[in-house]
């Protein structure tokens, strides 16, 4: 059976009953790391469907202190994006779309390919600034396809209204020009499992 996944913030767990959302059978819960104290591990509740931890770095210097688990970071400028892609510890670059000038170019795609990084598109970014986000995403996707870089489309939701259904995410990816075979691969949880190994 295929395992579909989504990434949500830990605040999302408090108000939702995840078992009611039957299309997703694996949830990655983001733990934001803003200060040193956040590194102290707090276990996720053992419920069904499965919950897995994902570290979201606000400060890139903490990357070396996380020994196991997937690490995701977001770059707001072209420099930050380059630093994230060059870092060996960080696995996922979140939201390569900028509200100003584009921050992701062909060189970034090449470095991401070498470092086997995953580029995560935040679905709520398409709601915030649809025109700019779609335009930049189409450009970035052509670069990612050219350099064979993996990409994922996730909700990064902190509440139910921000959650995007799996079918909607799949159709949106298709509208952005991704082929059926790529879509089947990138929405499967295996893409993140491989990264962990």
């Amino acid at each position, binding site marked *: 059976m295929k395992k579909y996944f989504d990434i949500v913030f830990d605040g999302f767990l408090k108000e939702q009953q995840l078992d009611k959302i039957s299309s997703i059978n694996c949830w990655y819960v983001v733990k934001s790391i803003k200060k040193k104290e956040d590194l102290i591990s707090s276990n996720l509740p053992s419920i069904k469907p499965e919950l897995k931890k994902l570290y979201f770095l606000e400060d890139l210097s903490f990357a070396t202190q996380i020994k196991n688990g997937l690490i995701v970071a977001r770059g707001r400028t072209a420099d930050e994006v380059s630093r994230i892609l060059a870092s060996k510890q960080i696995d996922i670059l979140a939201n390569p779309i900028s509200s100003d000038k584009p921050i992701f170019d062909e060189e970034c795609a090449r470095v991401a390919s070498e470092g086997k990084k995953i580029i995560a598109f935040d679905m709520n970014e398409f709601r915030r600034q649809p025109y700019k986000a779609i335009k930049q995403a189409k450009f970035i996707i052509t670069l990612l396809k050219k350099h064979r870089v993996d990409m994922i489309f996730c909700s990064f939701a902190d509440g*139910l*209204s*921000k959650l995007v259904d*799996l079918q909607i995410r799949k*159709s949106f990816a298709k*509208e952005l020009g991704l082929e059926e075979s790529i879509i089947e691969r990138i929405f499967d949880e295996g893409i993140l499992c491989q990264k962990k190994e």
Partner: protein
Amino acid sequence: MPKKRINVIRPTLRQGKRYVLLRFSQEKSKVLDQRSLYTMLSNNFQYAQGIFSLSEAGITIMSFEPSKCLAIVRISDDYLDKFLSSLLFLSTDLGYILVESVKPTLKSLQALEK
């Protein structure tokens, strides 16, 4: 003249329509009626895909149960992905939209709804 039996047209070939079962999370959907839901869905589709796509997509609300926050929408098969992707922009009005199922016949979807 002997009667000629006409073969049944396979559901997947019937005018290329798809039936989508949608569930809304927002309490706001409970005060909507079928007409206002149609206006909301078609306006949103037009915003995302344009007026020419809207005229060809043939969006029809087959049933809407505000108490259960459930709706069945019929759409042309060619525009299914465009319709589903446009739902991304509708969430501010209707909260989390769950696409429960997509089926080629209304009968199979109604069985699911029960």
